[in-house]
């Protein structure tokens, strides 16, 4: 990173410390994509990546009075996001594991070795059961997003509701799925173990 960047970052932090909303907005424009990418790689979930980056910026604003002392604003920002991610993983370990499994199943990242199919099927079955139990609208939105790969915008258009509503439904759907997984924690953990590889 060049000195000029560091300088202008510090300048932004200094102005944010003085409640300069314009500087805050500029900082968000500069860093949000890179931070989101880091969060996405950590959480394997677009929803949580968005949440974490939002939380980080809100926290930054809330504590803005202390920002003028920060030596390396960029490192500071990435650190906040990483800290929040680790915290979230600790609290939602099981869900993150499932997300990891689901994300890899979706994108087919791992070349599936022969004989691993049993485990995959059982995992998918459990996830499906969780999704099947969702109220209709949540289920539809979850499936449009994760099965069909539509964006929030497209889903909003399809269902004639606002994007905001789509996201709220998604948040509740993930919450429901997490509760279901927690109820089946014993079974699931063993299952995750049983297949050896995801």
């Amino acid at each position, binding site marked *: 990173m060049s000195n000029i960047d560091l300088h202008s970052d510090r300048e932004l932090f200094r102005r944010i410390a003085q*409640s300069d*909303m314009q500087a*805050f*907005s500029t900082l*968000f424009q500069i860093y*949000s*994509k*890179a931070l*989101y*990418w*880091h969060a*996405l*790689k*950590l959480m394997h979930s677009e929803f949580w*990546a*968005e949440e974490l*980056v*939002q939380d980080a*910026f*809100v926290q930054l*604003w*809330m504590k*803005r*009075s202390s920002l003028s002392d920060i030596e390396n604003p960029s490192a500071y920002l*990435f650190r906040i996001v*990483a*800290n929040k991610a*680790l*915290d979230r*993983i*600790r*609290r939602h*370990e*099981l869900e*993150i*594991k499932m997300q*990891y499994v689901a*994300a890899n199943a979706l*994108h087919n*990242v*791992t070349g599936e070795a022969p*004989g691993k199919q*049993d*485990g995959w099927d059982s995992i998918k079955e459990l996830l499906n059961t969780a999704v099947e139990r969702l109220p209709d609208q949540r289920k539809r939105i979850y499936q449009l997003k994760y099965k069909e790969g539509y*964006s*929030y*915008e497209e889903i909003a258009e399809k269902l004639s509701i606002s*994007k905001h509503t789509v*996201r709220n439904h998604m948040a509740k759907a993930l919450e429901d799925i997490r509760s279901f997984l*927690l109820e089946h924690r*014993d079974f699931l*953990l*063993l299952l*995750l*173990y*049983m*297949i*050896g*590889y*995801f």
Partner: protein
Amino acid sequence: MQQPDNKLYYLWQQYLSGRATGQELNELMEAIGDASRDDENIQLFQQAMQKYPAGAGLTDDTQSEMWRRISERAGSGRQPVHRVHFLRKWGWAAAVLILLCSGAYFWMTAPKGPKTVTLEPQPADVLPGSNKAILTLADGTTITLDSAANGAIAQQGNSSVVKLANGEIRYDLKGAASGGVMLNTMSTPAGGQYQLTLPDGTRVWLNAASSITYPAAFVTKERKVKISGEAYFEVAKDKAKPFVVDVNGQASVEVLGTSFNIKAYADEEATRTTLINGSVKVRNNATSVVLSPGQQGVSSDRQLAVINNANVEQVVAWKNGIFDFNGLAFQAIIKDVGRWYDIRVKYEGEVPAFKLKGKMDRGVKLSDLLRFMKGFGLQVRLEGRVLTIKQ
């Protein structure tokens, strides 16, 4: 930037590439579970992330949506800030949140880790085996390998014994192999396993309750090693020096550059040599047979039989961190399980006769496995390290 050479960094790389196995994912989650290691974890994560510089994903639309939500939440701060008031308000929220979260955290992580708060008396869980072994050098010195630091840990003639970051032991030969034969022995306890690279480059995986004796440098005409228990070999090719495995001082296996598994526990009725690729000659007293890949040689007291189409993947599953139960008799499974968890198994009444399906990660705690067995309608009781099974 120099890449850190440690296990945790490896786990992060696996995680980010989406290639982490179940066991690796569990290990990483355990490391993340320790908040005092956050600094270390974040540093390793960020280093591993350098491989993924271009961030795909966040669309302009979502970005502005996020900004809308952020400014909404941060908005109240635009007015002159009454800082004390604010801190109080958020301090309360934070305190409640921390309480809720730590409650959830303890609850979710209760079955593992030293932080467990147990309300009713419960027997301690039996953890699965892990990488541990004892290395006995030619002069009788012993080195416990789960605790020894990495790097060169001993010198045997011209060979230096090196412990790698992943725990594996390797023999590095500097200069010509010469002088007398210095015999080393690596042995694993029940509940242990270990990996080793011999001075000729041959790789050896040692299962629980097993041992291998070998020279620190192969100076004689044959590369001769001796094993008990179970070991998997990937023998380095060297036509001039045949590789010979002496099994329990009775049978032997002569190798011509190849991968194979030998299972020769004293409490099994036969020694099984399974060939993955290459060619080996199995000898039992006066008889011998040459195996081709996929075949298994079964040597018992006086007999030497060959099984065609052995389930090779199943035979070597242990070295990949997995129990493969498919089609095995209950009793056979329990023998392997007992060695891995270092427990003794007693049966009350009949030995269950059914066969199991499925695979299991070797990282599973015994309590989880027992719960699974109860699911099959078995009564199981663990007292100390003795497991009693009743149908």
